């Protein structure tokens, strides 16, 4: 069995083990936290494609997440659209909004794109509060129906968690296939050098818009799942802080990696709930951890980038050696 097969089997086993976790865990609260892990995994995979692979930063992903959540909640709760259709429409809407943000932002690079998407997130925060007819304003939107397909309704925390994790797994696998195929190579090429990517015939503008729309759509999908899993949403879940947390996970997880951002986002998601997840931990310690999560995230971002800047030349050299060794 060659290395590729071994890795494939390893992946399948890990996936099975992950899907088994919600079946073993019985605590409702822990299941809820694990559901959040799955939801956040979907968003961060999308952002990893956009930021980690294509090199296009976004500080607006919490807003796309919110668009998906409100759209699906409104479609099912108020308009009575069936769940599956509502989720599909929510994803399409998030994609379209992402596309609309991406097209004018195409001309922007790096920090300008960051500021434009940050602005988009701030505006959407205002919209989520002010568009009361759809969003319920600051009071939020409650009584969101559970996911259901025909007569089958998923109500139990276990079922919801399995659903979210199954979708997350499918998204992660699809994303991995994208990164290994032609569009993935195009994304990496434009990240490395835009003129170079243009020179080898990559339609840089089209790749950027597509990956932005895809990434926004995945955030919308996660938002829709989140809304139906928790049954209540309010504007505070879709603020800039969440966008920055996602960006931090991709920074920490590393360039051109899906597993890195996934691991980092999982850690960031679990940290605030350490009190519930680690039975032995004193309450005061758990509360302190929860209180200091933003500091920890901010510090992680700063230190990661400093360490990488200082170690870049060294790491580059060792990687070259490793690649040379693999080829021979």
């Amino acid at each position, binding site marked *: 069995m060659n290395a590729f097969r071994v890795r494939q089997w390893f992946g399948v086993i890990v996936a099975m083990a992950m899907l088994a976790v919600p079946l073993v865990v019985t605590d409702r609260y822990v299941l809820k936290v694990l559901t959040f892990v799955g939801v956040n995994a979907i968003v961060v995979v999308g952002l990893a494609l956009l930021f980690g692979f294509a090199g296009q*930063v976004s*500080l607006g992903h919490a807003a796309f997440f919110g668009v998906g959540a409100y759209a699906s909640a409104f479609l099912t709760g108020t308009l009575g659209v069936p769940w599956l259709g509502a989720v599909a429409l929510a994803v399409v809407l998030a994609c379209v909004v992402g596309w609309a943000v991406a097209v*004018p*932002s195409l*001309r*922007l*690079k*790096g*920090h*300008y794109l*960051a*500021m*434009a998407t*940050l*602005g*988009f997130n*701030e*505006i959407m925060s*205002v919209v989520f509060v*002010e568009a009361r007819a759809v969003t319920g304003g600051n009071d939020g939107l409650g009584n969101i129906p559970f996911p259901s397909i025909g007569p089958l309704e998923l109500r139990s925390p276990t079922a919801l968690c399995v659903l979210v994790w199954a979708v997350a797994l499918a998204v992660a696998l699809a994303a991995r296939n994208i990164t290994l195929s032609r569009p993935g190579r195009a994304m990496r090429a434009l990240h490395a050098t835009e003129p170079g990517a243009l020179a080898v015939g990559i339609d840089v503008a089209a790749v950027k818009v597509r990956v932005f729309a895809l990434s926004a759509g995945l955030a919308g999908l996660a938002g829709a799942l989140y809304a139906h899993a928790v049954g209540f949403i309010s504007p505070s879940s879709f603020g*800039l802080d969440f966008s*920055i947390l996602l*960006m*931090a996970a991709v*920074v920490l997880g590393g360039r051109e990696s899906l597993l890195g951002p996934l691991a980092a986002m999982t850690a960031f998601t679990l940290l605030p709930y350490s009190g519930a997840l680690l039975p032995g931990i004193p309450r005061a310690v758990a509360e302190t951890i929860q*209180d*200091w999560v*933003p*500091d920890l*995230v*901010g*510090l*992680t*971002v*700063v230190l990661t*980038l*400093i360490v*990488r*800047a*200082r170690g*870049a030349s060294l790491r580059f050299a060792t990687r070259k050696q490793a690649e040379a060794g693999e080829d021979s």
Partner: protein
Amino acid sequence: MSMSSADVLQFVASGLQNGAIYALMALGFTLVFASTGIINFAQGEFFMLGGMLAAAGMAAGVPLGVSVLAAVAATTLVGCLVERLALRPARSAGGLALVIITIGCSMLIKSGARHLFGPDERALPAFTAGEPLSVGGALIEPQAVWVLVLALAAAVGLTVLYRWTKMGLAMRACSISHDAARIVGVDTARVVMLSFGLAGALGALAGAVVAPITQTAYDVGARMGLKGFAAALLGGLGDPVGAIVGGFVLGLLESGAVAVVSGTYKDAVALVVLLVVLVLRPQGILGRHLGEKL
């Protein structure tokens, strides 16, 4: 829709008051951009610190004037520390990595303020008590006069520093080329740190002087940062005069939008300005060319 001349004047006055604040913020962005070529996402947090530190000083019994000056001084120091501790060690990474470091710093500053001062809104008393002045039927709070006067003083002081001092000359040299500045003996690292310190002072001044009107809280930074950046971009990033013009233009545009449409989406004006300028005229309304920097 009919509007009396007093109404128009009222909107202009509020536009000028907000515009002065945006101008100070835009100057902060522009100084850092001129010396480093990056956008400092922590600029909004400098604004927040100015108001919160001054309010905390007052709460501790320190006189208002001393509180405000100490808040500006402390934020200047924070600005220098951001450069020295977080950005300088990663300088070789360049561009986007440095920008993301400022985002990390902004998280740290915001969260630090929450630990120190709590999550509640804070108020600061007006710098001078007194009845609103009536100008042509429009009512103008004395604090609005403070905002305009202090913004003007800061702009004049900065112009003097930039145009006629050796440090200002060094700053202008750095904005053209770091390498060339270093060759002629400019300590570029010091200039960059100073520009962050000044950005801190300008942000804090804006935050402290407007706090009596708007109140303040640990999380007001991001939105104000966005507006200050939009103003800086409008006037042409890296151009101090443009920053001031951009600030007032944005303030008046917002006021106009409130008068004509509604106050609900007032905050959207800055984003629309930001996107329109970025897409149509990235060098700003006064700027000449910026081509390679975008």
